[in-house]
C-alpha cells in the first residue's frame, strides 16, 4: 500500500477528481495548503503600498492506494493536474505500513 500526496492548483480539483474516478480510485482527503516554490506570488495593492502574497493557495490531496495501482494513479494525477505553467505542483509517494477502516475495523488492502 502507498500514500500519494499531491500538491495541485485549486482550479484543477474537478479534473483531478474525474481522472481519479476513471482509474477506479474513489476515496481521497483534501487539505487547503499554501505553497511556496518557483512560482512567484501576485502583487496586491493596498493604500498605495504593494505587498506580495508569497504563499500561494494550493490543495493537497492524500490518497491511499494499493501498490499495483500506484503508477496509474500518479500518472492520472499528473496528466489531469497539469496546466504547463509554473506552480502546477508535485506528487510524492510514501509507503504505507498499515491501514484501517474505522467503521468496520478492516485492515490493510481491505481498508482502502
Amino acid at each position, binding site marked *: 500500500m502507498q500514500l500519494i500526496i499531491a500538491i495541485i492548483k*485549486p*482550479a484543477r*480539483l*474537478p479534473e483531478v477528481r474525474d481522472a481519479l474516478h476513471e482509474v477506479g480510485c474513489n476515496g481521497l482527503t483534501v487539505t*487547503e495548503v499554501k505553497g511556496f516554490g518557483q512560482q512567484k506570488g*501576485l502583487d*496586491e*495593492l*493596498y493604500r498605495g503600498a504593494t505587498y506580495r502574497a508569497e504563499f500561494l*493557495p494550493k*490543495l493537497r490531496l492524500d490518497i491511499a492506494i494499493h501498490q499495483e495501482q500506484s503508477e496509474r494513479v500518479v500518472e492520472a494525477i499528473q496528466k489531469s493536474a497539469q496546466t504547463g505553467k509554473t506552480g502546477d505542483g508535485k506528487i510524492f509517494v510514501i509507503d504505507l505500513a498499515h491501514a484501517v477502516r474505522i467503521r468496520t475495523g478492516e485492515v490493510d488492502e481491505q481498508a482502502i
Partner: protein
Amino acid sequence: MTITELAFSLDTFYLLMSAALVMWMAAGFSMLEAGLVRSKNTTEILVKNVMLYAIACTLYLLFGYHLMYGTPDITTHAKPADIFFQMVFVATAMSIVSGAVAERMKLSSFLIFCVLLTGVLYPIQGSWSWGGGFLNEFGFSDFAGSGIVHMAGAAAALAAVIVLGPRKGKYRSDGSVQAIPGANMPLATLGTFILWMGWFGFNGGSQLQLSGAGNAEAIANVFINTNAAAATGAIGAFLIVRFVWKKADLTMILNGALAGLVAITAAPDAPTPALACLIGLVAGAIVVLSIVGLDRAKIDDPVGAISVHGVVGLFGLLVVPLSNSDATLVKQLAGAGTIFGWMFVTSFVAWWILKVVTGIRVSEEDEYRGGDISDCGVEAYPEFITHKQD
C-alpha cells in the same frame, strides 16, 4: 413668521429627511449585493456601488435634473431639497444594474454605462411622466416609481445580462443550474433591512408635501402600506420556499420583502392595509417563481434584481387600478411598455457597443480569480481562508 413660512420649513425638512433615507438605500444595495456574491468579488461590487452612487449624484445634479424637470417653479419647499430627493432616486435605478451583472462585468464598462444611464437615459424617461411629459398626460400612474425607477433599472439590467452572458460555471453542460451561494448572509439581511427602512423615504417622500391634513394622512398611509407589503412579501416568499423546497431559504425571503416593497411603490397611498397585505403577499410569491424561472431561462442574475425590480415592478404597475380609480390596466400597460421599451432598447444598444469597443466582460482568468484581486488589488476578507474550490 407666517404659517406659510413654517409650512415651507416643515415641508423642506420632510423632503430632506426622506432623501437622506433614500440615500441610505445606497448602503442597502451595497450590503445586499456584497452578501450575495462570492467573497472573491466582494470588494469589486462594493467599489461599483460606491462609485455608481457618486457618479449618479454628480451627473444628475449637474445635468440630469435639468433634463428631467427643466426649471420648475417650486414654492412649497426649498428647491435644493427637491433636487436632492430626485437625485437619490436615480442612484437606486443604477443599483439594480450592479447586482444583476455582478461577478463578471468589467468595472470600467460598468462605470461608463453608469454615466449614460444616470446622465441621459433615466432623466429622459423620467421626464415623460414625473417631468410632466406625455406619459403623465396619457394618465399613466406610478406614485413613487415601481416602473419609472425599479422596472426601468431592471430593463437596463436585463439588457446587460443578455449581452454579458452568465457567470462561468453557473449552468452545467447538461443544462442544469448550479447554485452559487453568496458569501455572507448577515450582510444580505442587513442590506435588506436598510432598503426596507430607506423605502419609507422613497415612498413616503414621494407625496412631496407634508403640510395639510390630507397630505399627512396620505403619508401615514404610505408608511403603513409600505411596511405591510414588505412584511407580507417576506411571508409570501417564505410560504412558497417552505412548501416547495422544505427549506427556509433566507435569500428568497429577503427578495420577497423587497418584492413587496417594489410592488406597493406604484400606489402606496391608496390601498387599504388589507389590500396592501395582499399585494405584498402575491409579490413575494411571484418573485420566487420569477427567480427560478429566469434561472431556468439561463438569465443569470446573482441577486435576483431583474425579478425583484422588473417582474414585480410591472406587477406593481398593473395592480394600481385596484386602488386608484383613475388608473386603467390599459394605460398602465402602455406606460410600462413605453418605459421598458426605451430602457431596454437603448441599454441593449449601449451595452452592445461597449462590448464591441472595449469589451464588457473580465477575462476568464480574472473571473476565476475574482474581481477583487484583478480590479481592486485587495480581497474583501484578506485574512480569512476561503474555499477556492468545492
